Structures are given as structure tokens and as C-alpha cells.
């Protein structure tokens, strides 16, 4: 509306008309706006009509849309978790029924037939549990992890169940800053895989190591560092180097080295420990100092902050394992080779994993999984969550699982051997351990008896150390070269080495007598698993001639026998002696003494020396090789059910007693899983209620920001209508009133 003053004096009709017209127009616009507000329920149509309110309205609209998204998510999560909770509740009932059966089956009061009936009932429970564990909701296998499309649990028969899912977690964002998984994987819910036995294999850094993988995966975001190189005299150069673009350790090297192109230069590499940087002045420089510019902490974090010195050795950067970590970088870059392989045993199946040609962690994991699968063994090989070790677990419940060596140290180098020095004695034999008053009685090769007190042994290494301390260097205990177990050897004489039968010997897998040489005996297992160095043996025959027998390719006793027998068939013969403790040679070519020259190979085969006439009796080369006593078990419901049925059918009360404890432990563990799911479901429902409350509040706020107050609108319509009517009437009256009417 024009706000100009009405000047004194004349007031033409056109002025009056224009001003009245403007007023009428404005009132009509206002009336139309009010009409639209009443019709749409909104105070304004365009944000610019009320920018502040519109900003609020747009914000609230966005929040309401976000609220709606989360409600959908919460409802979805609620459905999955409720279904999961129902299944877990039913499984808990099965655990209780299993407990009742187990208690009923323990002891001599139950007949074999009754135990068979109980075992049959256990079989039925197993099937019922499988049905529950393979349940689906909205076409998702509830317990398959991320493998939602597979049947997670496969009955292999004989009380064995294979888990084909994974440990994938489906995590969703249900509220601001609140992420929650809407699933439980089968491995977690049913303890369907063995627990990993592994050690930190401490990878060294390499140029390819990503900075984001340092410090246990926390990573480093580099900024700038200031490097000063001097030659002790007047030559000095200082560079502040921006490392923000560096992604790898190699990038640090490249960028720092590239900053110095004059007389003084620098060499950046990996420190001798393989865990940090090494910065050495080169060229004309002989001193170096590194500091952080203001606001940067990179030098300090990388452990290379230093006053002037001859060279800077960086601190441990603690990289995590990745699929691309080279095997040569393991164990601080010890440079272990992986040419022997590892032996994986699951139930009655054994797989020898060949790691030849494998160069990375990913390659090793793939080789373990794939070659195991070819042998019918289902394992999952992965990098641990902490990124410091490899974990290889069995997917099969109901049978034992072990990882051992294949004549070398590959399993130990990978940190996955399931039996070693750090293994707790108490954990052996499925948790039964060894007797509290553990002791071994060993009949030596010289006929004497050595008793060894193992009551203080906590770890297997304690056991080994105790045996080795009895007659150091003569009676030796070591870990089996192939598979797992403890090997005893004795150089005190030529007689048999025997461990007296007893609970401790059984618990340690040493109840066996010394092995008898067989044609199939591997050379690697001889001499207490020290094996036989590859090489040749020189024989001076009884006719005075000399023969060289090449045993480089021999791997078994039969290979050795064949090699000797091939020299002069039927004349020079090699056989296993009657005790099975060594190799006898016989040569009828002449009348002299048969002699085998001393050497690493001949000594290891126990055949070096001068024979009596045509015969040369070899020394004992075998040892007491212990059996596996630390098989890993899944320990979950399926594992227990399978073992329970077997124990009932075998009337194995000791096993039943062990399973009783394990079942209690599993029941407790399972309760925590259920509780976790129930807690999550409760959280989801609380969030759902909060989201509903929030929605009401948001809609109220939105209404305040955008909705029209109908009472106010209607009042204003009446007010403006009255004003418009008055204006129209006045306009009509005043515009009609002219002097002409009175002439």
C-alpha cells in the first residue's frame, strides 16, 4: 500500500481512485491468502513467505522422514529378533531335555537297552535342534550369518553336524548413534565351530604396509614432519615435509627421500627389528634430527622424533595382518619358509596342506580352506578381529579337530598349531587334563627306569622341560614332527624305550611303546622326529669295492631299503631288524667287513660303522611318539548331542560325566546368547516406542511451524471481509461524489 503522504491542496480523482484501488487489491490478496490457508491448512505456500518458520518446517519434515525410516528399520529388526528369540527359547528347552537324559543315563543303574533308548532320544533332539537352527524368517536363514541363503547346519550323520554359515553380523542403525545387530550367527548361537587356538604372529612392516593398518588397525593419518640433515659442519638442510598424501610405509620413504635432492640426502627404510622406520643420513649428511611442526604429531606417533643423531630407529608401529601381508613378514620378519606344510585332522579325516608357492596370508588361508575341503574337512580360516593372528576353526561338531606340523614348523610359524608349549595341561583330553599327581615312569634304552614328577606342570612345555631335565641331552622330549603329540627319544642304550602305562601316560598320549620300524615309517619321524638329513651313504663292501647310495629322495624306510637293495640286487641287502628298531645290512660279495662311512645321513639312519663280517646291524632310530591329546571340540549343542549319543551307546560314564560339565557350561553360555538377543529386542522395542513418541512431538512442532490456526484464519477472514466491504462502499461513495452532480 502506498505510504506516501497526501499533500495539502488538490486531490485529483485519479489519485483517490489509485489509492483506493491499491487498498482494495491488497485486501483481496489478503483475503485470497486466508482462503488458501483455510483450504490447505497451511499458513504459507512458499518458504519465502515465512523463512524462519519454513526452515523449521523443512527441518521437521526431514526429521519425520528420518523417524519413519527408523521405525521401518526397528520393525524389521524387531521381527528378526523376535523370531530368533523364539527359536532360541525352544533350543533352551532342548538343552534342558538333554540334561535330563544325560543324568538319567549316567551310572550303572541304567541298562544298555535303556541307554540305547536314551541315545535314540538324543538323536531325535539333534534333529529337532537342526530344524530350529535352520529356521528362516522372511527367507533369511536366521542362524546363517551373512550366508542367508544356505541351510546353515548340515547333518553329516554319526552325530556330526557341519555349519555352512559364517559369522556375519547384520547391523542396522536404529537410532542416532545406536547400531544394533538384528541377527545371531549360528557359530555364536550354537557354538558350532571350534574355538580358535592361535598365537600372535607379529607381522613386520613392509613398504606395502598401509598406514591405516598400523597400531593394531587404529592407523595413522600423517601430517607434516620437519627433518634436518647436517654434516656436522656448516652444511645443513631443513625440510618440512607434508606427508598427508602418504598411504603406505613406502610412500613415507618416497616422500621423505624426495625432499632432499642436494648435497645432503636421506635413506628411509625398515629398522632391523622389522617393526618401524630407520632413517639414515646419506650423501654429505651424517646427522639427522626430526621434529613435529606446530600442530603435527606425526613424527612422535611414528616414533621418529629425535634430536640430532647419527640415525633414527623408529618405534614399533604394530601393523595388523591383512590378506596381503607376505608370509616372509610374519613373526617380525623372521623369514620362515613354508615348504613342509601342515597337517589338519578332523575326526578320521586328515589333510596335509601344501603351502608351497604361497606367499601371502590370503594365499595361506585359501590353501588351508580349499585343501581341507578336498579332504572332507570343513574349516574356516581367517584373520582374527584384532588382526594379530590367524584363526583356523573346524565347522564340524561331533568330532575332534587338530592342526599340527608336517615335519617342519609351518603351523607354528602361522601360529595355528593346536598343541604346543603354551597349551595348558588342564585343557588336554577335552578338559579332563592330567591327574593331579601326574608322573611318568620311563624305562630307558639302557634298562634303567626314570620317574618324572609332573604334578607342578601347568603347560605342556613344563612337561617337556621336566622330561628333558631328567637326563639332559640323552632322554629328550619334543613335539611330534608330524601331527601333534610329545615324542620321547633316548640315547642311553640300544634297548627299547618304554613309558609305563598309567593315567598320566594316557593323558599325555605317551602310553604307546616305542614304535616299530615299518617300511612306511617316514624318515622325518626318526630320531625323535629329528629326521634324517638328505644325502648319500658310502658303503665299503666286503669285496673291498665301494658303493655310494643316494638317499636324497628317500622319505620312508622302504625308500632307504630300496636304494641299498638296488646297488647289487641279492648281494647287498638291507632289511629291518627283527626288533624293528633299526636297519641291518648284509653283503655277500666278499670276505671282508662291511663298512658304512660315518656321515650325517648314515648316522641318522644308525648304520654307520664297521660290521662284523658281512653283516652290519643298525642302531635303534625310532622313538616313543605320543598321540594327539588336545583335539579341539566345538562344544556347542550339536557337538554335545553327538558325543552324548555316542557315550550312551558306548556306556562311557567317564565321558558322560565330562559331558555333564560341558552341558552345564554350554547351557550357561547359551543363556547369555539368549539374554543378549532378549536385551537387543528390548532395546529395539524401547526405541520403537521412543520413535513413536518422537514422531508425535515432531508432528506437533511441524504443525506449529507450518499449519494455519483455523480460528485465527476465520477471524481474519471476517475482519478483512469487513474492511474490504467498507472500502468498497467508501470507494463507491466517494468516487461518485463530484461537483458536477450539483451543477
Amino acid at each position, binding site marked *: 500500500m*502506498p505510504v*506516501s503522504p*497526501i499533500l495539502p491542496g*488538490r*486531490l*485529483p*480523482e*485519479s*489519485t483517490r481512485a*489509485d489509492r483506493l484501488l491499491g487498498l482494495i487489491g491488497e485486501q483481496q490478496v489478503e483475503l485470497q491468502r486466508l482462503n488458501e490457508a483455510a483450504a490447505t491448512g*497451511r499458513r504459507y*505456500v*512458499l*518458504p*519465502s*513467505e515465512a*523463512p524462519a518458520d*519454513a*526452515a523449521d518446517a*523443512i527441518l521437521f*519434515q*526431514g526429521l519425520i*522422514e528420518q523417524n*519413519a*525410516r*527408523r521405525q*521401518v*528399520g526397528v520393525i*524389521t529388526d524387531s521381527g528378526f529378533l523376535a523370531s530368533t528369540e523364539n527359536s532360541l527359547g525352544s533350543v533352551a528347552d532342548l538343552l534342558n531335555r538333554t540334561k535330563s537324559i544325560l543324568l538319567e543315563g549316567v551310572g550303572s543303574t541304567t541298562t544298555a537297552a535303556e541307554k540305547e533308548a536314551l541315545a535314540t532320544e538324543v538323536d531325535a533332539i539333534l534333529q529337532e535342534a537342526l530344524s530350529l537352527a535352520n529356521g528362516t524368517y*522372511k527367507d*533369511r536363514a536366521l542362524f*546363517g*550369518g*551373512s*550366508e*542367508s*541363503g544356505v541351510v546353515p547346519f548340515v547333518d553329516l550323520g554319526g552325530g556330526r553336524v557341519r555349519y555352512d554359515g559364517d559369522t556375519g553380523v*547384520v*547391523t*542396522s*542403525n536404529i537410532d542416532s548413534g545406536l547400531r544394533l545387530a538384528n*541377527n545371531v550367527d549360528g557359530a555364536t548361537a550354537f557354538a558350532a565351530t571350534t574355538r580358535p587356538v592361535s598365537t600372535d604372529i607379529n607381522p613386520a612392516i613392509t613398504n606395502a604396509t*598401509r598406514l591405516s593398518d598400523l597400531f593394531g588397525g587404529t592407523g595413522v593419518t600423517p601430517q607434516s614432519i620437519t627433518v634436518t640433515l647436517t654434516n656436522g659442519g656448516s652444511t645443513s638442510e631443513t625440510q618440512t615435509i607434508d606427508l598427508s*598424501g*602418504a*598411504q603406505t610405509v613406502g*610412500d613415507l620413504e*618416497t*616422500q621423505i627421500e*624426495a625432499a632432499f635432492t642436494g648435497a645432503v640426502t636421506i635413506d628411509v627404510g625398515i629398522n632391523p627389528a622389522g617393526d618401524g622406520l630407520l632413517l639414515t643420513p646419506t650423501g654429505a649428511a651424517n646427522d639427522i634430527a626430526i621434529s613435529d611442526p606446530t600442530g603435527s604429531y606425526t613424527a612422535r606417533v611414528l616414533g621418529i622424533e629425535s634430536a640430532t643423531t647419527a640415525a633414527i630407529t623408529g618405534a614399533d608401529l604394530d601393523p595388523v595382518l591383512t*590378506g*596381503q601381508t607376505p608370509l616372509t613378514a610374519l613373526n617380525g620378519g623372521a623369514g620362515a619358509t613354508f615348504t613342509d606344510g601342515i597337517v589338519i585332522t578332523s575326526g578320521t579325516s586328515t589333510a596335509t596342506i601344501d603351502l608351497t608357492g604361497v606367499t601371502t596370508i*590370503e*594365499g595361506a588361508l585359501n590353501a588351508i580352506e*580349499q585343501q581341507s575341503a578336498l579332504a572332507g574337512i570343513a574349516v574356516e580360516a581367517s584373520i582374527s578381529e584384532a588382526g594379530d593372528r590367524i584363526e583356523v576353526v573346524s565347522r564340524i561338531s561331533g568330532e575332534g579337530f587338530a592342526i599340527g606340523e608336517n615335519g617342519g614348523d609351518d603351523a607354528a610359524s602361522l601360529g595355528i598349531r593346536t598343541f604346543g608349549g603354551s597349551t595348558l595341561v588342564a585343557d588336554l583330553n577335552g578338559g579332563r587334563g592330567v591327574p593331579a599327581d601326574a608322573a611318568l615312569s620311563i624305562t630307558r634304552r639302557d634298562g634303567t627306569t626314570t620317574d618324572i614328577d609332573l604334578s607342578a606342570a601347568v603347560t605342556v612345555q613344563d612337561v617337556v622341560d621336566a622330561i628333558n631335565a631328567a637326563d639332559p641331552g640323552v632322554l629328550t622330549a619334543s613335539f611330534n614332527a608330524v601331527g601333534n603329540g610329545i615324542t620321547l627319544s633316548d640315547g642311553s642304550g640300544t634297548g627299547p624305550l618304554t613309558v609305563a602305562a598309567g593315567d598320566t601316560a594316557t593323558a599325555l598320549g605317551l602310553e604307546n611303546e616305542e614304535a616299530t620300524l615299518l617300511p612306511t615309517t617316514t624318515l622325518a619321524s626318526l630320531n625323535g622326529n629329528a629326521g634324517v638329513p638328505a644325502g648319500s651313504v658310502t658303503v665299503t663292501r666286503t669285496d673291498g669295492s665301494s658303493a655310494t647310495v643316494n638317499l636324497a629322495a628317500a622319505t620312508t624306510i622302504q625308500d632307504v631299503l630300496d636304494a641299498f637293495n638296488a646297488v647289487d640286487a641279492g648281494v647287498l641287502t638291507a632289511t629291518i631288524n627283527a626288533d624293528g628298531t633299526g636297519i641291518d645290512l648284509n653283503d655277500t660279495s666278499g670276505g671282508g667287513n662291511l663298512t658304512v662311512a660315518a656321515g650325517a645321513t648314515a648316522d641318522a639312519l644308525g648304520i654307520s660303522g664297521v660290521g662284523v663280517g658281512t653283516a652290519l646291524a643298525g642302531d635303534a632310530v625310532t622313538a616313543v611318539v605320543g598321540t594327539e591329546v588336545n583335539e579341539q571340540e566345538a562344544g556347542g549343542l550339536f557337538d554335545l548331542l553327538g558325543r552324548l549319543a555316542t557315550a550312551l551307546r558306548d556306556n562311557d560314564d567317564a565321558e558322560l560325566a565330562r559331558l555333564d560339565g560341558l552341558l552345564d557350561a554350554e547351557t550357561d553360555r547359551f543363556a547369555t546368547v539368549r539374554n543378549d538377543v532378549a536385551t537387543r529386542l528390548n532395546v529395539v522395542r524401547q526405541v520403537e516406542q521412543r520413535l513413536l513418541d518422537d514422531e508425535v512431538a515432531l508432528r506437533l512442532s511441524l504443525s506449529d511451524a*507450518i499449519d494455519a490456526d483455523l480460528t485465527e484464519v476465520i477471524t481474519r477472514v471476517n475482519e478483512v471481509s469487513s474492511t474490504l466491504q467498507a472500502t468498497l462502499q467508501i470507494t463507491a461513495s466517494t468516487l461518485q461524489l*463530484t*461537483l*458536477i452532480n450539483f*451543477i
Partner: protein
Amino acid sequence: MSLNGVIRTAGRSLEVFTAGIAVAGQNVANAATPGYIREEINLQPSAPFERGQLVFGTGVQIDGIRQQIDLFLEGRIHTAQTNAADAAARSDAYLTLEAQLNELGDSDLSTGLSDFLAAVEAVVNEPENTAVRAGLVTEGANLARDVATLRSRIDDLRIRSTTTLEGLVDEANQLIDEIDRLNPQIASLEASGLIQSEAGALRTQRYTALTRLAEIVPISYQERSDGGVDVLSGANYLVLGGETQHLEIVSGTDRGVSAPTVRYADNDGPLPESGGEIAGIIQGRDDILGGFVDELDLFAAGLIETVNRVHSSGEGTTGRTSVVSDVVVNDTTAVLNTAGLLPFTPTHGSFDLKIIDADTGVATTTRIDVDLDGIGGNDTTLASLVASIDAVADVSASVDTLGRLQITAADGYEVAFASDSSGVLAALEVNVFFTGSDSSDIAIAADLAADPGLLATGRGGGPADNTNVAALAAALDSGVDSLGGVTLREHYQTAVFEVAQESAGQKALADGTADFVASLESQREQFSGVSIDEETIEILELQRFYQASARLISTADELFTILLNV
């Protein structure tokens, strides 16, 4: 004085009063004529004569007919109209833009973004659900279409402003010609006039033309002594003496659409950047609508890069046996971070190339370095990238004739990507969700639209592996570097808020300037407008004077008769 003299004096008075009534009649006749400036007859006593010691008057004479105009006020009105037209054009641009955004409705881009985010969250919750996965692809396509459609609508508005500009330029040129035509006519009519205001009608036409011209371009004018006016626009003349200078359209492009500008035809100089409807429309087109296009481009680019950076490092439930980049690289030997080579600039880093045995699912990973540190002269080009990929077993890489990267797995193998810290996969549009670089070409990736199984929800797990899509949800809820650290939603909302704020401010300015113009026009109307009452009084007054003069003649005549009868 003789009786004859009296009669002559009275007779001339009759002529004068008749002329006065004619002027009043002209005013009454134009009382409703827009822009009409009322006229007023100026009277003055005729020159007296001396007889003996007496001085006699000779009656009345017309000094002239003067338009009642306040030239200072007229100048203020023109300036105000220039500003008002400019402000109105810019306000119109804002209001039109707001209407296109429809931000308070349910079909706005914010809602599209919310729907897309909802679809992402749904896949996070149920990654294995094929219908939900397809829903995300559909919502992605909808969002891309919404962005592209909004851009298209704004482009259309900008293009259509050209038509308006052309009309305004034509109109301005006609007005310039009209002023130039009226100038000599007015001069001719008023050549013998006394007060240079006699050509009232023509002057009114010229004032009307000047008023309208002032709305189109900022002008100032100066009346010459001959009654003509010189019209200037800034430092440029439009009408000067008998010379005129027209405006002309100059073609040009801005942000991908035709965006002509206007300049002075003779000296090719640009129009002032502000003032007048033309400047307002150009500002509305380039600064307001174009400015929002920039914001929309930033939003679209941020959306594309954010989504693609995450998506390109993930895996779908359908394995890829081959991948073809959607980006054409004309110079395969150029370093990949060369400005303008790729729609998004990759950085120094690396990505993992996974070759998956289709039968066993075993993945073999090779890290492909993307060296863009500018050191050593070995920075990565497309050609060297191809060589690095091609060196990996069971996969081949090449550049096709169009300049696109092609990666093909050997028979029985599939190819996947992970951990791209360089952004090169997103930049090359390999395994991406969106294609394009801004709001003009954003679209859903064609292969993804055809097979939602390619939606990269996981990172090597099973169908319910949601790690990648969860990362995508987190990225969409996080600040984007290219947007100054704010989220996509915050960026767009801020842009919309700014439009609303600016629009409100511009509307207030437009209303204010319009009110100011109305105020000035009211003042002019009060001064120059025709008052019927006033004219009626004038007519009545002149009528009485006429009657009196006629009576004087009658009286003189009677005196003659008496005299002749003596």
C-alpha cells in the same frame, strides 16, 4: 480608451476564456488517460498603452498552456522504477525457483533424498531381500531422475528468460525510436511557444515512453532547449540529438544452456549490472537460478562421489565377469589426476582387485597401486593402470576404442574390487551406483538397473553381508569434504533455506521499491492528475468571466447606441 477599445478588449477576453475552457475540456477528456499530465492555461494582462497622463489596460492575453509536471519528481520516479523493475525481476526469479523446488510439498528433492536414504536403511536391515535391494536401485534411479529433472526445469526457466529478454530489447528499441521521433515533433510545435510546454500530448507520450524505458534499462535524460530530450543509460547514449543507439542481444552460454546477454549496439558496451528489468532478468537467470544450479551440481556431485566411492569397493550377490568403465579417457597416457581428465579427481592410494573362482568362491586379492604422488615421474596413467591390472592372473584389462577401461575375468572367474583409498574406481565409474558428474547427467548405472544383484551391499560375505551398504548409510549420514564437511541433506537444506531467505529479502525489496514507486506516482498524480472538481470550477469560473466580458460588450454596445441617438 474608446468604446471600440473596450469592445476589442472584451472580445479578446472572450477568445481567452474560450481557450481556457478548451484547456479544461482537454483535461477532463484525459482525466482517465494513464500518464496524462494536466495542462493549465497561463493568462497575463495585455500590454497597456498611454494616452496623455493616463495608462490604459488592454485586457488579457494567453501567456501559454503549461503542463503541470514536477520534473524533479519525474526523475525520481524513473530511478525508482528502474530499481523496482530490477527487484521485481529478481524476486520473480526467486519465487519461480521456490515454486520449482516445492520444498514444502511431498514431491520435492528432500523427500526424494529421504526415500533414497530409507531404501538404503532398508537394505542395511535386510541385505538378502531381493525386493528390498531392487527397491534401493529404484529409489536411486528416482533420486537421480529427481535431481536431473529439477536441473532440467531450472534450465528450462533460464532458457525461457531469453524470450523475455528479446521482447524487452525490442520494446526498449521501439521506445528509443519513439522518443527520437517525438523529439523533433515537440520541438517543431513549441518552436514559437512561449513556455515550451505547448506540445502537451506529445510530451505526455514521450514521458510515458521514458517511464517505460526506465523500467527496462536504467536511464537519465536531459531536456534540450528545443524541447527534445537526450537519453543516457550509464555512460552510453540512447537518444542524443538526432542519433539513437539500440540495444542488442548477444548470444552466449552459461552452465550448459543458452544465456544471451544484452549490450549497446553501437559501442558493444555491456549494460549496467543492476537496474532495470533486463538486468534483473539476467541476474535472475545467471545469479539466482544459475547460482542454484551450482548448488544442485555440488549436491549431485557430492551424492555421486559419496555413493560411488563406497559402492565401488563392495560386492553384490551377482558376480561380475567383466566391467566396463562409463568414463571416456581421451589421453590414456595422461596422469589420472590431471585436471579435467576424469569427472572426479583420484588421489594417491590403491585398491584391491579380487579375482574370484566362480566354482569355489576362493578370492585372490592383488593390490593395485595408484601412484599419484607426483614423485619419480611414475605416476599412474590409464595405460599404466591397465598394465597393472593386466599383469594379474586370470584377468585382462584394456582400453577400448572409445577410451573406456575394460576389465574381463578369465573363464570361470569373476572380478571384484575392495578398499579403494584412491577413489580411482569411482572416478572411472567402475562398479558404481551412479553415473555422471553433476545434476545435468546424473543417472543410475545401467548395469545396476538391469541387475540389482550387482548392488554392492557386502564385502565378500554372503547375501546378508551388509558391511558395504552399512558403510554407505554411514557415509550418507556423514559430512562430505566437497560440501565443506556438511551432509548431503544439510547442504541441500541450506541451499533451500538460502533461497527462501534471499527470496523473502528480495520480495521485501521488490515490495518496498514498488511501494516507493507507487508513492512517487501518487505524488505525481496528486500534482499532475486531473481533478474533475477543479476543472469544473475552472470551467464555471471561465464561464462567468466569459459572461462578464460578453456583458461588457453589450454595455459598450448600449453606450454606442445612446451615443448614436444623441
